[in-house]
């Protein structure tokens, strides 16, 4: 279960942590029983993600993937953001241990949920 230096760097100094005030989209994945819960918040302007932040209950990999995706997504169009895969996130971190690859590598899923949440709100501005 060896983490790369990049993973440890993001774990020790995670970027963009915390709940966002009035986010444009929120994605939640995982659940307590499996040991990982990830919340991703995004702000969207002109169809681009301008800001992202996260709150994560989870292992080192879960925290590092959350952290790095908030950097990866910044400035990307929604379409580009949707194309980010969990695999790419892991690659950006210099790889993840096998077991982590399959279980704590959920950041891209959270991002997708956040974008869908944003789009849903766009379609129905009154929705909570």
């Amino acid at each position, binding site marked *: 279960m060896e983490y790369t230096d990049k993973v440890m760097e993001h774990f020790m100094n995670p970027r963009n942590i915390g709940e966002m005030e009035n986010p444009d989209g929120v994605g939640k994945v995982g659940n*307590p029983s499996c040991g990982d819960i990830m919340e991703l918040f995004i702000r969207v302007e002109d169809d681009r993600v301008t800001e992202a932040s996260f*709150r994560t209950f989870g292992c080192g990999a879960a925290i590092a993937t959350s952290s790095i995706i908030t950097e990866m997504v910044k400035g990307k169009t929604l379409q580009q953001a949707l194309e980010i895969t969990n695999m790419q996130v892991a690659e950006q971190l210099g790889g993840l241990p096998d077991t982590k690859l399959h279980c704590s590598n959920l950041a891209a899923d959270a991002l997708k949920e956040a974008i869908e949440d944003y789009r849903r709100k766009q379609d129905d501005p009154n929705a909570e």
Partner: protein
Amino acid sequence: MRRIYLDHSATTPVHPRVASVVNRYMLADYGNASSVHSFGEAARKALIRAREQVAGLIGAEDREEIIFTSGGTESDNLAIKGAAWYNRKKGKHIVTSAGEHHAVLHACKALKRHGFRITEVGVDSEGRVDPDEVADAIEDDTILVTIMMANNEVGTVQPVAEIAEIARRHEVLFHTDAVQAVGQLDVNVSELGVDMLSISGHKIYGPKGVGALYLRKGTRIRSQQHGGHHERNMRAGTENVAGIAGLGEACALAEEELKFRRSHMIRLRDRLLDGLQESIEGLHINGSRDERLPNNANVSIAGVEGEAMLLGLNAEGIAASSGSACTSETLEASHVLSAMGMKPELAHASVRLTFGRENTEEDVDYVLQVFPGIVSRLRSMSPLDY
């Protein structure tokens, strides 16, 4: 960087006195104990001495009641499968508990393929087995009860003497996995009334890859590893002389130090638990506070995942462990904490710190100094309440 090892239930450093014994049998008296010549004689003497040292620590009457194995896992497997196969004509039912080590649970599970039935009695919220439940679980064809002496995760000590008495009353063999208890608690096979008892070297400042099974005189089991006529035909394979001599020395050391170890570790443990409870909100102590291994502190810290805490602690030089899914090979939270009825988010939030003979109060104070900061940092990014 300061490095503090607080994972002695996972494994211990080999004591220098033990290491020097191991070295003697690696480098000088390296003979095979089956050999006629003087090198063989030195090896045989080492085995006799080690058998006496192990027997001495656990109060066995006869050194021939000690069978050397490759570790606690093998001792458990040999006891359980050995007893099951030997007694299969008497019955095919075994009673164990949900809180046992995987070496016990999976050995039992392996027997299921061969038509044995396993009853796992539960544990309460502190991880304790109720002797009455064991009594109720015994059926006409029960051949073995196996209940551990002390739990490796939460440190809860089981009422083994009482359960052994129940087994004896029902004329059922009783085995206990004492891997964590030995070297910390008074372990006396006569007083406990057990038929079989498992020991592992690397939990008591001995080498890894060596262990022992106490097999009460007259207790018959079937050997599980076949080959030469070693260990009174109970365990084939060239004896690991250096490792066995090391295990023996570790047992002698444990006997000498037992009182010191217990009081020393209880002091450190309680200092840590009290300190953590004061400085960290939403902290829950896992396991029994009273019937507890001297060296075990196990807590759940609401809202913070276990592996993340371990990484944080490791970055500060502190080595600990956790029952979180992320630290297990099965990616499931600790089966012990689950059996205790703990909610998953708390099970994933557990940290175990286990002391050793070389730890100091300064170590505890250092942990108390850095741990709350790690927790609040992780909580600052956690979506869970506490």
